[in-house]
């Protein structure tokens, strides 16, 4: 039974839920969302890179403990590395406010030497670190939260089961749509539709593909709503859940902390501004 309730979900992609037993996995999903929200808000409110850097270190450490650092690093490598490299390069070398030399690289071919400036690097880090906090915190939440448990936790906090269903269905919707769009593209091309012709014909091709996709969605929606109805989805009695999502005192404390953290950050910014 434990194996079942911790079974991997989704389509085996890089973003999918990774089962595990860490504190992050056991944290109430709503608390996790609250913490993620507060970290990101505070990081974005911060005027320098110092606070975001500390937060970044914290979320990276959490990923390490949750056993997902490898995956997170791989994704960051693809997403964040190019942004980080270009920000640091351009501002480090060419920011107009550059005054203080940080270090000099000598003996380079062609350009001879380059000077890296402190102001530019600081500016780049101020932009970069909140972005990193945002990416890593969201990835950590997605990878350590079983989507169904998130839905259950939200319903227990008062979310309507219908909205929870929509949330769950949306996760599966994209791959379904993609498969269907591919099938339609094949079928229309087999009937001579030219998707590589001039702009006018391409636009028509787009219409020819979109219409069956919409019709298909309507048919699916119709049969699916019947399926839901016949599984008692519209009943008004109290529901039970396959997954138990505990809400421990520590989870509640974390939510309080998340709220206070944001309030404190806002207060600090307001005081600093005054």
């Amino acid at each position, binding site marked *: 039974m434990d194996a079942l309730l911790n079974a991997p979900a989704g389509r085996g992609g890089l973003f999918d839920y990774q089962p595990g037993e860490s504190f992050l996995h056991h944290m109430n999903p709503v608390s996790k969302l609250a913490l993620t929200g507060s970290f990101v808000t505070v990081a974005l409110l911060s005027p320098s890179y110092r606070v975001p850097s500390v937060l970044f270190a914290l979320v990276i450490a959490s990923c390490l403990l949750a056993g997902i650092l490898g995956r997170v690093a791989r994704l960051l490598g693809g997403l964040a590395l190019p942004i980080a490299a270009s920000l640091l390069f351009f501002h480090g070398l060419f920011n107009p406010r550059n005054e203080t030399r940080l270090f000099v690289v000598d003996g380079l071919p062609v350009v001879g030497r380059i000077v890296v400036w402190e102001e530019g690097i600081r500016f780049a880090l101020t932009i970069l670190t909140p972005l990193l906090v945002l990416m890593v915190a969201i990835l950590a939440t997605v990878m350590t939260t079983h989507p169904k448990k998130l839905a259950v936790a939200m319903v227990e906090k008062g979310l309507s089961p219908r909205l929870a269903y929509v949330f769950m269905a949306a996760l599966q919707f994209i791959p379904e749509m993609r498969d269907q769009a591919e099938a*339609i593209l094949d079928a229309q091309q087999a009937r*001579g539709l030219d998707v590589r012709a001039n702009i006018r014909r391409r636009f028509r091709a787009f219409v020819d593909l979109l*219409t069956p996709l919409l*019709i298909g969605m309507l048919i699916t929606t119709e049969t699916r709503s019947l399926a839901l*109805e016949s599984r008692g989805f519209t009943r008004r009695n109290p529901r039970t859940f396959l997954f138990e999502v505990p809400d421990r005192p520590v989870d509640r404390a974390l939510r309080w902390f998340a709220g206070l953290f944001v309030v404190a950050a806002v207060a600090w910014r307001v005081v600093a501004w005054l």
Partner: protein
Amino acid sequence: MALIDVSDVTFTYRVQPDEETALDGVSLEVTEGSFVGVTGPSDAGKSTLGRLLASYVPNYFEGALEGSVTVGDHDVTETSIAEMSDTVGLLFENPFDQLTGASSTVFEEVAFGLENKGVGREELIETTAEKLRLTGIEHLYDRNPQQLSGGQSQRVALASMLAMEPEVLVFDEPTSQLDPHGTEEVMRVVASLADEGYTVVVVSHDLDRLGHHLDRLVVMNEGSIVADGRPQELFRDADGDDPYELPDAATVGKRLRALGKVPGDEPLPLTLEDVVGEVAPHVADAGDESPGASIESDGGLQAAGDDAAVQFDETHFRYEEDVHALRGLTLDLASGCVCVIGQNGAGKSTFMKHLNGLLTPSDGDVAINGKDTDVHRIAELAGEAALSFQNPNNQLFHSTIEAEVRYGPTNLGYSEERVDELTEAAIDRMNLEEIREKNPYDVGLARRKHVAVASVLAMDTPVVALDEPTGSQDAVGIRVLGDVVERLVEEGKLVVVITHDVAFARDHADRVVALRQGELLLDGPPREVFGRRDALAETDVDPPFVTRLAARLGLPGTVLTVDELFEHVS
């Protein structure tokens, strides 16, 4: 008292523009625990009857309903679908649309209904596990429901329905979209549920597989019940003009009775075992079972040479890195009807998509009428080979059937007159004249598939490829398709038919190509290929019923038709 009581019901769908009645004066009583089959041609009202029992009609599909329907204590007009789900479960044909689309595992999917019912957690887990066992899918419990085969998916939908603990199970063509393997899996479970004490109503064309399980068969035509009784009695009285296809076993049994070999009052055989028992004493050269005893070597069909319409040369195809879908396929197809058979995953669809460059080989070459698919664009190749896929909903989108049929030839840039001419011919061939002004989505799935085929015929290409054209079709629909294929062949075209329907391949193929895991397993005339029962088993294909029967009787050579079988009956 009857558990199901349908009394003088007439029903017309509100959306049906021309006031056709779907049910016309239908009365039916079903007692608890019985296993009832409902058969008849497409659009006979079978699905409407099923929907009525589950109260989908009139709750979801609205319309004018006369007469009364009760199931257990519930009057369907006064019971919502959600309330009715405790009493009646309805499983329909598309296995994928019946899932919630919101579960990450099979276990969650099946538990969904129980969560909505508010069942305690212990009981919830126990009941879910029990229904998984009952449908034989407990090993799939942690799989993603979106990634299952059709047969597995259909059983997940069935387990989910059983979890609601209904007394009556209604199946509407539960296997029409499945391959033979999936069909077998689902039929076995359906039959076992009748033994578990459920009251079962199955709407199906497949009397070969279903017939011997049934207590009772109801035949519908044009919205009315035209026959109702024990299957054997109905088959005995069938005169060849019936709105359903007699199972092969019964056909052989009737002929034995007509010849006086078996007393006329003996119940008709419905299974292979039974019919073997009846025929065996009258077969002169019955001996040991010797499958494929006298098979001539490969025919001259392969030697099509350089002018072949379709040439596969050492073709390999890989999906991403790990799925090797075609493995060095070398094949020339010139003309005639070529049926491609093999289990799911054998590479049939991948093969078909190579015919117009939708897929191009990872290694090796494919040429269509001499055009290398690596070099020519799909839009050019579409003028050489037209493909019709399994699901018509993926291609149809015009507001009338006629406009739909015009789409292909117009894309190919033919003159207005030629488009008119080809459209007329295709509409005529597929028998769509009466409904040409209708929206394709206002006709049933079977006719809609015919529209998709017509839209491809109208392109007038030298090569025509059809993917599972006979799925969801009744006997008449299959005959129409067969005639079309024959006509195309007479015109000198190459027709490639991907199919699980071995009877269709036997009746219409000049050549049968069996694929197994992306490789060529067998290639030859139907008689030769269907004689290789052991080889076919490697790709999960059974030869036609009569062929299997003759093999069981130990008849020499390969028997393909009932007439051939009776040449051996003394």
